[in-house]
């Protein structure tokens, strides 16, 4: 352990001596302090806070991540190039201790810089709120919708598979489908059509959503009912109606009138007393009847949610910073492994190329369509080849891998006032800080062991 600590301290000292640490601190200070001063929100306190959190933390993480990756690529590669590694490997130090020592050194640097970013952003946030001219209503809105950690509870999903297949049967029987249309496309389009119909509430009609039992924790806690109305093409009619929250037996424990609501995301404050403990919560929307009434269309991708306060902002912010730190750990491990096998320029090129490719691959896998191998599609004459199934599985695997790497960005959660939960942090810890760095470490140590560290000079 002493050996690892000594190498870590040496790696950290080298970073500080090379002025990287100080330069990075200056760049981060300029970014974190300068960006919010120049960035413009939409003129509201909520807009300013969102911009401050999203842009400063996001940009600071990108800058820090890039530099950490760069430094990691140079750590072992420079030691080999400048032959300093010969002084270490001739001592009784195992290669894994070298790798771990370097990694901890980089982590120490990241931790200090990230703490600096976190403290500065939090201080700026407090300063911005204190010096804002916003009224009490706006401030309360910011504290209850952004500076909070809320858990999102979605309604129980209903299965419409039978209805989708019935609709498809009808389309096939009536020759409404072009012969060359793939099965996936028919299924996807029919499914969206059915879901759209199920998310539409005509004037005078109502729709119910059922949520599984959950606890609000405290009876004083407020719950937000969030829904997303969509506009039917150019028709921008407003929707009016009544929202009811309660149970199957008593669906109107809480009642709220919605007047002339336009398309977009909306929230309604629901008292915790309206949420029954231990039994499912039922939310009902009754659309207004009459000539002026408009059809309410709810977004099928962004369904109805109940947002419950789960934690305070300080802890949420802290967990978000910790998750960003885990990302730094992963990037350091990746850079170190690259530097164990390549020279510095090649390691930098390979690492950055891999990161860029990863981000591009995120968009490529979005095109992955589900494959249907059910008996119904065989009956309809749609066959899927083994190659297609195999390719689909490969892409699914890639998709899973990519989402496990990129799916732990805490900034969007925090900006929307959603909780960065302990569960989320724990998963990020396991994947980004333990599993992937460990795997990379094993590869890195193996390659370092195999690498010729003292080539004869001719």
């Amino acid at each position, binding site marked *: 352990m002493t050996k690892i600590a000594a190498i870590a301290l040496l790696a950290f000292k080298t970073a500080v001596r090379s002025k990287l640490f100080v330069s990075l601190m200056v760049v981060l200070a300029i970014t974190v302090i300068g960006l919010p001063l120049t960035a413009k929100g939409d*003129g*509201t306190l909520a*807009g300013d806070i969102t911009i401050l959190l*999203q842009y400063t933390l996001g940009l600071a993480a990108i800058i820090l991540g890039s530099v950490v990756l760069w430094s990691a690529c140079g750590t072992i590669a420079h030691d080999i190039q400048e032959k300093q590694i010969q002084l270490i490997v001739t001592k009784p130090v195992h290669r894994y201790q070298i790798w771990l020592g370097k990694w901890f050194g980089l982590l120490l640097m990241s931790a200090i810089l990230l703490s600096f970013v976190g403290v500065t952003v939090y201080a700026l946030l407090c300063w911005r709120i204190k010096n804002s001219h916003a009224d009490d209503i706006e401030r309360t809105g910011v504290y209850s919708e952004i500076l909070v950690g809320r858990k999102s509870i979605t309604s129980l999903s209903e299965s419409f598979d039978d209805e989708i297949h019935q609709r498809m049967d009808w389309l096939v029987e009536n020759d409404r489908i072009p012969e060359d249309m793939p099965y996936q496309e028919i299924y996807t389009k029919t499914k969206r059509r059915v879901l759209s119909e199920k998310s539409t509430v005509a004037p005078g009609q109502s729709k119910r959503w059922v949520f599984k039992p959950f606890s609000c924790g405290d009876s004083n806690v407020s719950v937000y009912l969030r829904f997303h109305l969509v506009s039917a093409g150019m028709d921008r009619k407003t929707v009016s109606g009544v929202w009811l929250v309660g149970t199957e037996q008593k669906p109107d424990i809480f009642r709220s009138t919605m007047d002339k609501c336009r*398309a*977009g*995301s*909306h929230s309604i404050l629901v008292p915790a007393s309206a949420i029954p403990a231990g039994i499912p919560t039922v939310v009902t929307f009754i659309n207004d009847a009459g000539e002026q009434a408009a059809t309410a269309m709810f977004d099928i991708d962004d369904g109805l949610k109940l947002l419950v306060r789960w934690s305070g902002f300080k802890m949420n912010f802290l967990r978000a910073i910790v998750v960003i730190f885990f990302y730094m750990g992963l990037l350091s491990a990746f850079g170190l492994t690259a530097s164990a096998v390549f020279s510095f320029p090649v390691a930098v090129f390979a690492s950055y190329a891999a990161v860029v490719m990863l981000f591009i691959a995120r968009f490529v896998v979005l095109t992955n369509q589900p494959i249907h191998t059910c008996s119904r599609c065989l009956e309809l004459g749609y066959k899927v080849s083994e190659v297609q199934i195999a390719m689909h599985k490969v892409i699914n695997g890639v998709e899973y891998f990519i989402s496990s790497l990129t799916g732990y960005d805490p900034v969007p959660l925090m900006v929307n006032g959603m909780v960065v939960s302990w569960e989320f942090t724990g998963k990020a810890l396991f994947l980004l800080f333990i599993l992937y760095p460990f795997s990379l470490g094993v590869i890195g140590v193996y390659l370092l062991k195999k690498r010729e560290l003292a080539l004869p000079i001719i």
Partner: protein
Amino acid sequence: MIIRRIISVLLFCCSLLCFGLGGRQNVALAGKRADYGFGFSVNLINASPIMVFSTVVLGGFRGLIADVLWLRVSYMQEKGEYFEMVQLSNWITKLEPGSTEVWAYHAWNMAYNISVMMSDPADGWRWIKNGISLLRDEGLVYNPDDPALYRELGWLYQNKIGRATGASGIYYKQMFAKEMKGLLGGATLDYAGLGAEIEDKMRDEYKLLPEIMLEIDVRYGPLDWLRPESHAVYWAYRGKLRAGEKGARFCDIMIRQSLSMLGIDIQEK
């Protein structure tokens, strides 16, 4: 060794030749870009160092960055999240500062598309002001000789505020009149009695030049400056002063329409 040196000299000569040819091509290309009104060859007036940096250093990559930001604008708008719109629009317009269409689109998007999504008229009014501010405080600063931008700004006053109907329309007109009354003190202006502080605020914050307003009042008025149509006349008039024969026509039309909305007979003037 000698062969290596000869190759080096040859390569050096080749690179010089390439630079020369590239330079010759660049002159022609820059001319064409200026003719079509594209890119960084457009001479920006009042450009800040950041603007010069973004237009010159980023070069052709500006377009790509603007595209990415534009995609984000569309994505955020689709999701109904408008917090970033002002900043994103600001960046996009800074990347394409010489393009009238880009300025006009983003101002229109905020004033028309986003404002109508707001349930509260106060929020809608804020977005209209964001759209006006983008054109008046930035677009016209960098493109003071572009009559189309004056027309677009005038259109926001004439159409978006002046012709808005319903409860929101009444609110917008009330808020506009309240703001102008706070600034000017009343519907008509006492040009001789304007204090230095008010005049500075008019010039710096609202970009209202008293000498032009006086000219308009003498020519067409006196106008009721608490009404948005008068401001449409003002901006169209300023556009007309900057425009050539072709650009003056649509400014003239806007002046006529706005005066008509104010109940002033243009034939008499």
